[in-house]
C-alpha cells in the first residue's frame, strides 16, 4: 500500500513570486510520481511525471518538480507564478509494477491562490 501527503491545503502567493507545493509519499516499493492540475470547473490534466533517470523533471506551463528518494518527496515548483496558475494541484503515486486498486493514489490536493 502507498500513501501521499500534501502538507498544505491552501497556498496563497503573490503574482510573479516563486511557489513550492509540497508532496511526500510512502511506499514499500519503487514508485512513479505525478503532479496533476485541475483548473476551475475542469477535470484533471497531467502537469509532469517522474518515471526514472534525472530527478529534476520539467512539465507544462513552466512547472518543475524534484524527486528526492531519501526524503520520499516530490515537491512542485515554479519560479514566477501567473494569475492563470490558480488551480487545485494533486500529487499522485503509482507502484512501478503490478496493479490492482492500490495502483494510483492521490493526495488531498493543494489549492494555489494567486494574489494580484
Amino acid at each position: 500500500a502507498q500513501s501521499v501527503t500534501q502538507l498544505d491545503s491552501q497556498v496563497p502567493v503573490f503574482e510573479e513570486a516563486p511557489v513550492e507545493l509540497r508532496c511526500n509519499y510512502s511506499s514499500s516499493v519503487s514508485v512513479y510520481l505525478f503532479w496533476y492540475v485541475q483548473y476551475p470547473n475542469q477535470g484533471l490534466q497531467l502537469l509532469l511525471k517522474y518515471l526514472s533517470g534525472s530527478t529534476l523533471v520539467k512539465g507544462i506551463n513552466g512547472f518543475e518538480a524534484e524527486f528526492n528518494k531519501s526524503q520520499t518527496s516530490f515537491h512542485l515548483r515554479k519560479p514566477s507564478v501567473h494569475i492563470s496558475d490558480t488551480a487545485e494541484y494533486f500529487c499522485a503515486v503509482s507502484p512501478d509494477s503490478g496493479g490492482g486498486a492500490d495502483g494510483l493514489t492521490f493526495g488531498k490536493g493543494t489549492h494555489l491562490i494567486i494574489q494580484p
Partner: protein
Amino acid sequence: DVKVTQSSRYLVKRTGEKVFLECVQDMDHENMFWYRQDPGLGLRLIYFSYDVKMKEKGDIPEGYSVSREKKERFSLILESASTNQTSMYLCASSLILWGIQPQHFGDGTRLSIL
C-alpha cells in the same frame, strides 16, 4: 488528443432514485476509472475496469455499481441515491492500467442528491 466525455456537467436527483453517470473515451483505451472528489479528501477511486465486462472495486465501492458493455463506454450507477453521494464524479481512461501512462480525465459531473 485523448478525449474523455462525461454526459452531464451538472445533475440533480432525488433520494432513492437510480442514477446513471455516463463516460465515453475516444482513444481505444483498455482501462477506465470512476473517482469521486470531495473537498479536503482529494480523489477516491470507486471502481475501475481493465476490459469490456471486467470490473474491479476501488477504495469506496459501497452504494455504487458499474457497467462496461463496450470498450469506449463506462457507466457508474447509483442503485438508490443518498444525500451522502452528493459529490463531483470524475471519469478517467488510460492505455496501461497503472504506471507509466497517465490517466486522462473528463471534466466531471457535479451530482446533487436532494
